[in-house]
């Protein structure tokens, strides 16, 4: 009796002390831990936006002979979660630049760029022939901006989350929206019947 008991204790101790493991996973793998906004949502949104934009006929035509300059305004977070929307626009921006069809100016580093320009022109430390000159930056022609909104419904054992991401490309001079696209995502979670 005692032997059986001690064997069971030993078994339990082994199971409980099992060490935790660290592993690398596929960054593109579908992530379905919770219904919250996650990496798969971000990737789906970015892929859809870039694909839509690059095949839109007027944009194909516009980017045939030149690489227009864009700037990313921001994507408004209108959901009930704290989502880093800059991370979504960063991914979109990277994909667009890598397509070779667009160029970007970055408004988030303007202050630091100005500091560097001041240093190059005023500190006396920089060879004037190599110093970058003030007033020679290229103005953006288009602005990218958008919205991320969500509708969340919960009912007993089911939670339904609907995300809608809208992105717009606006011609700064004419004020015309040249392109827009939407990505909808619906996620549903059902409570399991048994658990710890």
């Amino acid at each position, binding site marked *: 009796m005692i032997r059986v008991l001690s064997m069971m204790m030993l078994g339990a101790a082994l199971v409980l002390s099992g060490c935790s493991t660290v592993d690398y996973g596929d960054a593109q793998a579908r992530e379905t831990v*919770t219904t919250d906004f996650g990496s798969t949502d971000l990737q789906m949104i970015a892929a859809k936006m870039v694909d839509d934009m690059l095949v839109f006929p007027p944009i194909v035509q516009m980017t045939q002979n030149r690489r227009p300059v864009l700037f990313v305004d921001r994507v*408004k*977070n*209108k*959901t*009930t*979660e*704290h989502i880093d929307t800059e991370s979504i626009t960063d991914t979109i921006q990277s994909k667009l630049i890598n397509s070779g069809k667009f160029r970007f100016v970055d408004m988030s580093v303007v202050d630091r760029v100005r500091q560097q320009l001041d240093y190059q022109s005023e500190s006396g430390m920089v060879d004037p022939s190599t110093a970058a000159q003030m007033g020679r930056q290229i103005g953006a022609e288009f602005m990218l901006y958008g919205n991320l909104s969500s509708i*969340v419904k*919960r*009912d*007993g*054992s089911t*939670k339904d989350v609907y995300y809608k991401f809208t992105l717009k490309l606006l011609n700064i001079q004419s004020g015309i929206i040249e392109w827009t696209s939407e990505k909808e995502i619906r996620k549903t*979670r059902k*409570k*399991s*019947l*048994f*658990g*710890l």
Partner: protein
Amino acid sequence: MLLIRKGFPLLLVLALLSGCATRSLFVPYPNQATAWQSGIGSPQPAATEKLQKAAQSNDGVLYQQELGRVSQLDGERQQSQDAFAAAIDHYQQTDEAARIRASSLVADTSSLIVNDNARPYTAPDYERIFTRAYQALNYWAANDVTGTAVELRAAGEEQRNAARKRDREIAKAEKDADDNQVDLSQYQGYFEGLDAAAGSVKASFQNAWTFYLSALFWEAHGEYNDALVDYKKALEIHPDADFIKEDVQRVSAALNGRLHKDGMVAVIYEQGFVPPRQELSLPIPTVHGVFSVAFPTYSLQNKPRPDSLRVLDSNRQPLGETRVLADVGALAAKNLKEQLPGMLVRQTLRATAKYNAQKKANDDFGALGAFFTQVYNLVSEQADLRSWLTLPAYAQATRFFLPQGQHSLVLSTPGGSATLNVPVVDHGLTVIHVVAVQGHLITRVLPVQEGPL
């Protein structure tokens, strides 16, 4: 072997009692809470440490809520934000937990032989709504507009969800009572105090104060549609509040392009602490006779009277007076009332279990065993007095308009007064957060909100 089998229930009880998983088993929660209520308003490392430690227990969410609130009032914004975020994580886990959980079965079983405090604390809806509102104030104080907007939206969503699930839950609890043959009407007389404390509150989650707070925020950012919806929701709960009627008219006009020029100043005023639950001895009839059990309730005597805060300008001219938008004591009482059917069922089962234990002890363990079982049954009979106790007794608000510039305002309450220098911006919103606890005022002016979101 016989000894082991006989001793097993005792061993089990010992194991349960020695586990510090649930602190409220034998120390009533309101007694614990005085540790952090008394020093509120200035940093209190000892109480904070106590709360942080308790936050790891089974009742973690309750202590996280307390910690969030205490640190917010003590001026530790980041700590408060982390604590509320942990509480919100916990809500999500509760919402998404499996319907039948091994751990809650264990807790239910131990609550059968100990008391309801053995069940892990789950935050009622009215507390969840306050958590979201306070978290919004944390983001607001840090001037994180997007974060504030997210939390205010989430507060509204909590209220909608609560409305959706409430009817179904009450129906289910009454069905359970039927199934277990517990006649709920026989206890009606014992809970008159509870009814009085709940007053005219229609549902435990209806919180006009958080609706009003979010409406102010939306209006300041030109989101007139959202503002109108939330002002109307607040008005629905307090149909006689004249200043909310004006708000509805003003925002309707703004939707049509007619903007109010001056800057708005709003005072959100939180008065006192919500009254704690009290213990009531309730005779429960079982098959073996009447068994007296401890039951939580609220009473009207315990409830402070609402007093308003008046705002005066530097010439002592009145600018506004706050009005109660959420009677938190009543929300808590209403919540307890909504939970009553389920609690009565558990109490009946527990009374039977304890009677059986007593009977078995009498038969098997002789006089000494019977004596200890009786003592145990008496000592372990503790009502579930847990609830978030640093919430205010009354959440109030008022608002008025002032021209752009710096203004010196006098806030006057029966518990003390304060003079503040307040910035006002045309079309902007300046919120003054005032908390009256322990005979003094804690005041802060939140960053001015203006411009589109």
